[in-house]
Every structure is written in structure tokens, then in C-alpha cells.
């Protein structure tokens, strides 16, 4: 089985869960809407003369906090869906509200690391940019399961990050596959978005209708990708921590993908 085959099959399995429980897409959709609202509210602060690093960091932390909050809710409900239970928006939001301290500490750590990496990435020196890429990729893989850990094992932010690193040692192949998969999926959907964008602009020109259609499309497709990824991430967590592959990620078609280290 090629990597591309594996990505297609895993995406199909996530899609199956999402089709059965479409409510799951509401979490990332709400998250995007809230993040857009924060950026719009923060826009006047930026002003024409640019923005200071502390302000940029504060806005970054706030948008990231919103994203983590909804991802916690989504992950809780995705884990429920994989157990055969019925997920709901209220239950997911309730769970996230109950984990606010853990969410805040995780957000603070990941935002700080992300911010430092972004600063590193702005350097004109090639070596620093390579270092940023290597450290960034390693960080993103090692922290991949932090949110499912926080949800299922009820750990705080920093212990969740630590435990995610331990689980990564057992599932590095599947985690890397997921990271690659999500990039391939995003790239493909970006192409679709560009095509649709060109069609919309051709049909309606630079009008309000065009802007609304494009905004809805961007939010909708981004929410879809986030929901699919969160479902796969939840399945990967179950595999890493519990030692089994949840339905519908198992079966002869997918067994080759899952390997315990």
C-alpha cells in the first residue's frame, strides 16, 4: 500500500464518521467564525504603522485559545462517536468549559513555542530557517496527541504535552502519515478552492456576493479538513493508548497501516 493509498483510506474512514455525525463539523466552523471575529476586532489595534510584538503575541494567544477550546470539544465528541455513542455540540462545549485551566496552559505553551518558531522563521539566514523547519516539524509531531490525551486522561496542559511525546514514540509512523495526509488533503482542497474562486469571480465579479461565497467556502472547507483530522487524531489516540483500532478505521483494508512499535 502506498502512502497516498493509506491517506485516501484513512480520509474515507474519517469521512464515514463525519457523515454519520455531521454535528462534528460545527466545532471547527464555530472556531473559525470566532477567530475571524477576534481578528476583525483586533484589526483597529494594528493600525497603519504596524503592530508591536506583544500585541501580536496577545492576539495570537487569544485566537489559538479559541481554536484549542473548540478542538477539545470536537475531540471529546469524536472519541464518543468512535465508541458508538452520539456526539453533541452541547456536550463538547461543556467538556471544553470544564477543562479551561488545562486548555489555557496548553495554549500558552504551544503559542509561545509557535511564536518563537515564527520569529526564527523570519530570519534571513538559511541555517536558522532550516532549524525552524526541523524544530517546528518535531514539535508538531511530538505534540500531535496532546489534546486527545487532555480529554481522555483528564491531564493538565503540560502533562498532556509530555504524554503526547511518549505516545508519539509508539505511533510515529501513523502520526507522520497523518501530518503528511493533512497537508496533501489541504493542498488538494486549496486547488479546488482556487478553481471555485475563479469561477465565482468570473460569474459575479468583485462583488459582495463573491466575497460571501468565497468566505463561506474557505470556512466550510477548512472546518471540514479540521473535523476529518480531529477524527483521525482521536482514532490514532485510541490505537496508541488503548491498543486497538476503533471502527471504522479497522478491517482488512486498513490493517496494514496500523503498526505497534
Amino acid at each position: 500500500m502506498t502512502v497516498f493509498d493509506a491517506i485516501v483510506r484513512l480520509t474515507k474512514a474519517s469521512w464515514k464518521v463525519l457523515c454519520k455525525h455531521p454535528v462534528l463539523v460545527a466545532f471547527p466552523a464555530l472556531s473559525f467564525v470566532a477567530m475571524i471575529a477576534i481578528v476583525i476586532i483586533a484589526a483597529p489595534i494594528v493600525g497603519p504603522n504596524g503592530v508591536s510584538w506583544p500585541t501580536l503575541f496577545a492576539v495570537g494567544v487569544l485566537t489559538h485559545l479559541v481554536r484549542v477550546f473548540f478542538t477539545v470539544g470536537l475531540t471529546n465528541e469524536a472519541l464518543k462517536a468512535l465508541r458508538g455513542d452520539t456526539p453533541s455540540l452541547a456536550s463538547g462545549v461543556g467538556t471544553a468549559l470544564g477543562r479551561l485551566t488545562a486548555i489555557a496552559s496548553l495554549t500558552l505553551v504551544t503559542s509561545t513555542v509557535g511564536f518563537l518558531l515564527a520569529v526564527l522563521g523570519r530570519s534571513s539566514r538559511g541555517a536558522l530557517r532550516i532549524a525552524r523547519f526541523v524544530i517546528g516539524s518535531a514539535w508538531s509531531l511530538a505534540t500531535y496527541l496532546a489534546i486527545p490525551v487532555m480529554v481522555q486522561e483528564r491531564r493538565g496542559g503540560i502533562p498532556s504535552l509530555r504524554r503526547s511525546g511518549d505516545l508519539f514514540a509508539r505511533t510515529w509512523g501513523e502520526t507522520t502519515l497523518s501530518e503528511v495526509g493533512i497537508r496533501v488533503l489541504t493542498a488538494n482542497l486549496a486547488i479546488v478552492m482556487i478553481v471555485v474562486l475563479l469561477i465565482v469571480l468570473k460569474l459575479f465579479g468583485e462583488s459582495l456576493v463573491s466575497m460571501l461565497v468565497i468566505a463561506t467556502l474557505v470556512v466550510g472547507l477548512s472546518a471540514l479538513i479540521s473535523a476529518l483530522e480531529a477524527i483521525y487524531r482521536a482514532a490514532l489516540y485510541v490505537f496508541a493508548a488503548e491498543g486497538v483500532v476503533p471502527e471504522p478505521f479497522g478491517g482488512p483494508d486498513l490493517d496494514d497501516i496500523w503498526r505497534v512499535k
Partner: protein
Amino acid sequence: VPVTLQIDYDRGVPVYRQIYEAVTAALATGTLARDEQLPTIHELAGRLEINPNTVARAYRELDQDGYIISQRGRGTFPAPHREASAADKRPVLRTIYDKAVAEAARHGIAAVEVVRFFREVKP
């Protein structure tokens, strides 16, 4: 349910294996009587908030290893006439050891001294 089970994610042991060990330990110590029914897969999965496939795998392996028998329509029961093996007793011994080491540590005694003492003790 006679099987005492608390998932310890810090042990680094997959959850299905922890369920397996809890059942064998309960059988070895007699906590789980031979005629006592085990919880259903969905009951146990619901109580532990884990995936039903995890409990199903533990039960499947317990069944394959001859510890339990799943009877369609009746439920899951311990297999009759199976003496506890040395392997069955290992999780129980591990718990006893961990408790002894923790208690010793409270008194400033190192784990290595506990082990040395256990070796010296004549049963």
C-alpha cells in the same frame, strides 16, 4: 463487579492489556468467583469511558488463553477448573511489590533494600 479496574495511563501498558491483567489478577486472588458473570463489553467500556473494541480485544484474548468463556445469550464467565499460573499471579505480585516499595520509601528505605530483605526472608 468483582474486577477492580482503574486504568493507569502512566504505566505505558495498553488499556486492553490492563483489563486482561485485572481479570487474571481477580481470578488468581479469588476476587472473581468462578460462577460470577463479567460485565458486558459495552457496560465495561461505558464505565471506563473507553472504546468497546478495547474491552472486546481484552475479552477475546482472555477467551483464547482459556481464562474466560463467552456464551452467546448468557454472558461472559470465568472458565471452569483453571488453576492460577505463575503468569496470572505476576500482576498481583507487582501490586504488592509497588505498595511495599511505596511504604518503604515513606520510611526512607530504598527499593533495593526491600528487594534484598525479601530475598533474605524465609517463608
